[in-house]
């Protein structure tokens, strides 16, 4: 597991209050919203805010590929990496 994947997993657990969960319970390819982990729209806003605060990335909730970036931990890590490199 890469450091960035681990950091994002911990961020999800912390920001969304997923008591009882550890990064090991959160595979990088697990779907976060709806089916899979079962997060909802309030979680999406909360997670967006957490990513924004931690990595300094402005997220456009209206952009059509935002949904793709938030699909799972791996896609979020790719999104964060791309912005950090830019």
């Amino acid at each position, binding site marked *: 597991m890469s450091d960035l994947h681990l950091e994002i997993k911990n961020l999800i657990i912390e920001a969304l209050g*997923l*008591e009882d969960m550890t990064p090991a319970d959160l595979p990088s390819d697990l779907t976060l919203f709806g089916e899979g982990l079962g997060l909802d729209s309030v979680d999406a806003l909360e997670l967006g805010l957490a990513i924004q605060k931690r990595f300094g990335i402005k997220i456009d909730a209206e952009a059509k590929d935002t949904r793709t970036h938030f699909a799972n931990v791996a896609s979020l890590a790719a999104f964060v990496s791309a912005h950090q490199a830019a």
Partner: protein
Amino acid sequence: MQFDIDQWRAWAPGLDSAEDWRAWCAAPRRLIDAQQQPDVGFLPALQRRRLSRLARMMFHVAWPLAADHPPLPLVFLSRHGETPRTLAILTDLARDEPLSPTQFSLSVHNAIIGLWSILRQDTSEMTALAAEGDGLEQAVLDACGLLADGAPAVLLVVAEEAPPALFDGHIDDVPFPYAVALRLSAGQGWSLALENGDGPRADWPHSLNLLRCLLGLQPSLRHHWKRRQWTWSRPHP
């Protein structure tokens, strides 16, 4: 007003069972709040995670009373509500930081009854009240209205969280966090009467005083608040 109290349950840090409360009523004292969390293990983790301690207290005392009673109208009373959440939001605002959507959506006074309605899948009439010293009696008045309207039973829950330290010296009516749930139904076991009258302020929140009557340690009870005199009694104990 006449009604029955079919069942009750109360929680405060370190006090849970009727025996715990019997001992407290015999020697009432301020409790130390070590941030104990009431058990809400009957909810899946994904549903539990957004519940503040105030919400957990409410769910802990009310859930067993509602277990065999779908659907059940609810009167929720809290003078101070989610004060810790509101303070967290105001603090973020003052620092020019973005607000947490979760904190924001759950800070309103009726958020807890909303969660209750969703998690119990109960769409009965539910009310969230905020009132001063005699809020308990005002909430009973509301509950009796629902009973008179034909509800077979009504759930009444009083819950207060310890205010954040910033409010020290400003909030003096929450000696420790507590929650009390009553299930009321139509009947003549209890009577609550209102008259004009002055008297001393009660030593403890009214719902905690009421526990002495509920435990049978005292036959009646009188509460005063702003020239209102409320008398609780059990005409047919």
